[in-house]
């Protein structure tokens, strides 16, 4: 078993016996009193900004917490997104491509997505696999429940979190931001298509 799989397994064994665990949406008046993931920006967001983002409908945040003590183990925030493609130049190569793959002549240029605006785990739980669990929840929720059209999960990942997202199956969207502080990644929900029954 890989170390990654072991850490996820550890998170499960620790949490499945925890009956006081809950995942809660942060509403406009809700406050998180304490959270420290080691990153000032991610801390600031959940401690200060998340209810404001919810009120003005820019992002909705969810906290995984102990409902008795109020300790926040991890959180994520979501917003609707899309992946857009510009029109190709009308060259013969592209026309051949379209004729081959889009026989009906219908070509969508924007594809709906859900963006993980922020995702963080408290330092006390780092390395336990909580972050992977939260990502898996998001992926499966949008794949299985399909409440609105959504093809991709996107994230603007910190450079030091890229390996984490690559292990989850995310891919770089573009080469333009290679080597930058953050990088746009995406996960194609259709990569689960042949396994619908499993989800």
């Amino acid at each position, binding site marked *: 078993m890989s170390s990654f*799989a072991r850490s*996820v397994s550890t998170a*499960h064994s620790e949490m*499945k016996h925890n009956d006081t665990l*809950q*995942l*809660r*949406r942060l*509403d406009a008046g809700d406050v998180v009193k304490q959270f420290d993931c080691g990153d000032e*920006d*991610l801390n*600031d967001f959940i401690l*200060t*900004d998340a209810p404001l983002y919810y009120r003005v409908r820019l*992002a*909705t945040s*969810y906290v*995984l917490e102990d409902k008795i003590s109020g300790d926040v183990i991890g959180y994520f925030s*979501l*917003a609707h997104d899309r*992946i*857009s*493609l*510009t029109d*190709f130049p009308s060259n013969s190569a*592209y026309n051949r*491509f379209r004729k081959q*793959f889009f026989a009906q002549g219908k070509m969508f240029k924007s594809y709906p997505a*859900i*963006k993980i*605006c*922020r995702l963080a785990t408290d330092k006390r739980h780092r390395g336990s696999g909580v972050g*992977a*669990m*939260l990502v*898996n*929840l*998001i*992926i*499966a*929720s*949008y794949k*299985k429940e399909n409440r609105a059209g959504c*093809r991709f999960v*996107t994230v*603007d990942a910190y450079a030091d979190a890229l390996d984490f997202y690559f292990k989850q*199956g995310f*891919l770089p969207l*573009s080469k*333009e931001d290679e080597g930058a502080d*953050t990088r*746009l990644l995406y996960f*194609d929900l*259709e*990569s*689960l*298509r042949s*396994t619908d029954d*499993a*989800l």
Partner: protein
Amino acid sequence: MAKPVKETPILFGEEARQFEVRMLHPKPLSPARVKAIRRDYEFLRKKCVNCSF
């Protein structure tokens, strides 16, 4: 105030073409990865209080 999240860029030219090819042929996840996704989903969904996603 936390920094704003970067906008998802528009793809164009060769990158857009390659992206569409990948869309048409998504790489299936491994059975182990699918199992982990299902396990975490089933576990955490039971912990949801007022989740709207």
